[in-house]
């Protein structure tokens, strides 16, 4: 639970500032970005994701480090499972 998942922002919504779409190893899911409302997020930015929420903005280099860490810990499949498990993107919450 303590390990966060890195994802890249691939879609932002003009009409809904609570959410963005991230790409995590090819899997796309909507996540909540309210915890980063003090930071300006742009398309292409990388974030650490925890339970469906963006927790911190990170650099691309840190993102690839984190992905490497997950694979060294044999946790990448679980991370992708988790992201696939987010169901709330099917409708606006």
């Amino acid at each position, binding site marked *: 639970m303590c390990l966060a998942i890195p994802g890249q922002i691939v879609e932002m919504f003009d009409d809904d500032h609570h959410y963005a779409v991230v790409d995590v190893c090819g899997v796309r899911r909507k996540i909540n970005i309210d915890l980063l409302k003090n930071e300006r997020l742009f398309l292409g930015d990388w974030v650490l994701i925890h339970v*469906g929420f963006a927790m911190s903005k990170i650099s691309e280099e840190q993102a690839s480090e984190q992905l490497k860490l997950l694979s060294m810990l044999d946790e990448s499949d679980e991370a992708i499972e988790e992201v696939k498990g987010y169901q709330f993107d099917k409708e606006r919450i």
Partner: protein
Amino acid sequence: MKYVDEFRDPELIRKISEEIRRLVDPNYHYRFMEVCGGHTFSIFRFGLQNLLPENIELVHGPGCPVCVLPMGRMDDGLSIAQQPNVIFTAFGDVMRVPGKHGTPLELKARGADIRMVYSPLDALKIAMDHPDRQVVLFAIGFETTAPSTALTLMRARELDVSNFSVFSNHVLIIPAIQAILDSPDMRIDGFIGPGHVSSVIGARPYEFIAKKYRKPIVISGFEPLDLLQSILMLVKQMREGRFEVENQYSRVVPYKGNISALDIMKEVFEVRPLFEWRGLGTIPQSALKLRPEFAKWDAEVRFQVEGARVNDPQMAQCGEVLKGVLKPQQCKLFGKECTPEHPVGALMVSSEGACAAYYHYVHLQDAVGK
């Protein structure tokens, strides 16, 4: 078990590990506590203890949220799950934690509607999809997870979803560290501070550890190199007689933390006067409950919760292991009655629990080696 050559930068790893060896006092036995379960997991997975001199001992702390949950809270949650018309939701780790009458998974097999979710927002979605049912989220986690629960509650209020409620078991890291520092049977020389909890609370709340208790603390990332660097920083501080909060993970952890996450937590939660922790007893001001403004979404208000107190199974020594007094394999049940397949205590459930980590990466290795 990983070997040094598999690490990202084996040369640097060797250098740091040699530097640690060079700087330690050979006549002193160092005890450093990694507070966070994510660190415990990393340390075991990478076999980091093998890269350290024998007189540095890593003690596993209370930073795994399912491990510190007392059985009574589990049973309170499960009593809600068994009420008619309830859909009970929980994260994966919680599903295998034993209560007095079984785990959530076992109760589900017996007919209760218990569902695993990956996000608190999914519990809210289930509530919106089933307006005729009561949907309850069993919320756990330190400050890494609490802001997400808080935001989900704010969304529930905004969207006026009235059949959703949260059974909050959110706990706070600082009072847990304080309890360990105040515990008479503890002798910790320094702390490896949690990485992702600190991205929310920042480095500032740890200042009292350095100032009042005169112990060094280094906030650390999760890679082998991060952890070794942090241990080196602790050794250096001790050698130089310094007690400071240092931030090895500054690429993710700002000194002041995540202000909007902290504000959101404050808006939704208040601090409980007392909360029981497995192994650490009752700690004042160590957990979060919903504010009265959110009473409508508070499962403790909506359902009759007994406030059960259940003693851990006899012979289980989860408490001693959580405080770092015993090593997992010193528990009488370790690897016998208590295994990851049939956990007696929560420390055997989550991959971040000391017993499960130890079982997978040390016990198995010993078995193969024999």
